[in-house]
């Protein structure tokens, strides 16, 4: 499973800026996210935006230079997990249960891909997420995703 945990932090003591900084350090320390050059753009209240640069190593179709769907999946999964972790109920961990990705069009070669994920509902132990991936053309998403993630609450929470 795709899992993530973060250290318990004292919410009362840290500002929103610190939260973003911590989340950025956390996400950018994930070996595979770092290998793909992922960058956290925004995070908070169950919404995360993460971008990934175009990279020739990630090409899936050598004839067109289009990025492989698998790399877009990696971005969507990371972004979905980050959105869950930033939910106001402050989970201590999350793991992907399932993730469906719809590929609407090929990402334009050479452009950065930006994923925006929103954790739109949580129960005691499950988080529901939807996400979209965009390149420079904001009006035509490259891909859309929906997923269910585990929602691990702190003991006694």
């Amino acid at each position, binding site marked *: 499973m795709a899992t993530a945990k973060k250290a318990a932090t004292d919410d009362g003591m840290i500002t929103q800026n610190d939260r973003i900084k911590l989340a950025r350090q956390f996400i950018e320390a994930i070996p595979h996210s770092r290998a793909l050059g992922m960058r956290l753009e925004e995070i908070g209240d169950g919404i995360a935006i993460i971008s990934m640069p175009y990279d020739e190593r990630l090409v*899936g179709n*050598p004839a067109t230079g289009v990025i492989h769907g*698998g*790399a877009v999946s*990696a971005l969507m999964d990371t972004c979905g997990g980050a959105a869950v972790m930033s939910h106001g109920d402050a989970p201590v961990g999350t793991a992907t*249960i399932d993730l469906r990705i719809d590929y609407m069009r090929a990402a334009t070669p050479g452009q950065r891909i930006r994923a925006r994920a929103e954790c739109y509902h949580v129960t005691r132990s499950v988080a529901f997420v939807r996400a979209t991936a965009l390149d420079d053309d904001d009006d035509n998403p490259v891909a859309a995703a929906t997923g269910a993630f585990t929602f691990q609450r702190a003991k006694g929470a």
Partner: protein
Amino acid sequence: MRKPEPVQVIKTRRDAALRGLVESVPYIQYLGVQFDRRGDELTAVLPYREDLIGNPLLPAIHGGVTAAFLEITSIIELTWSSQWADMEEGKLAGDTLPPMPKTIDFTVDYLRTGLPRDAYARARVNRSGRRYASVHVEAWQDNHDRIFAQATGHFLMPTRDDG
């Protein structure tokens, strides 16, 4: 009656076709996915590497890596099985690659943590029509009985010149 082809000729032809398919895709090379062939049956192998990790604390393979591994396995199986007949008849042009199917949607079911070791996957084409195909794929690690992820995907088949 025609004399059967020598086994080595057949193997060389099949291995070359498979290698051509796999080595042409940069992302497959980047992840290091290899394909084991027994007759027409393919098993994808993902050798473990540290930069495939998604959770350093457990540690566990990144869910995106698992998804990508399953998607690669599906696309290669689909391309391989749809070009099999042409390949056997020697109709494949050696240096031109067959057009790849495009993923319409892909749903991954994460059943267990992906452990920091090699993973294997096999895909089954459940339906392959002129335009659309449906593929199911399963991945496991140490025990084939303990599937750690499975997926179903739908694909748009490339249009054939002679179609």
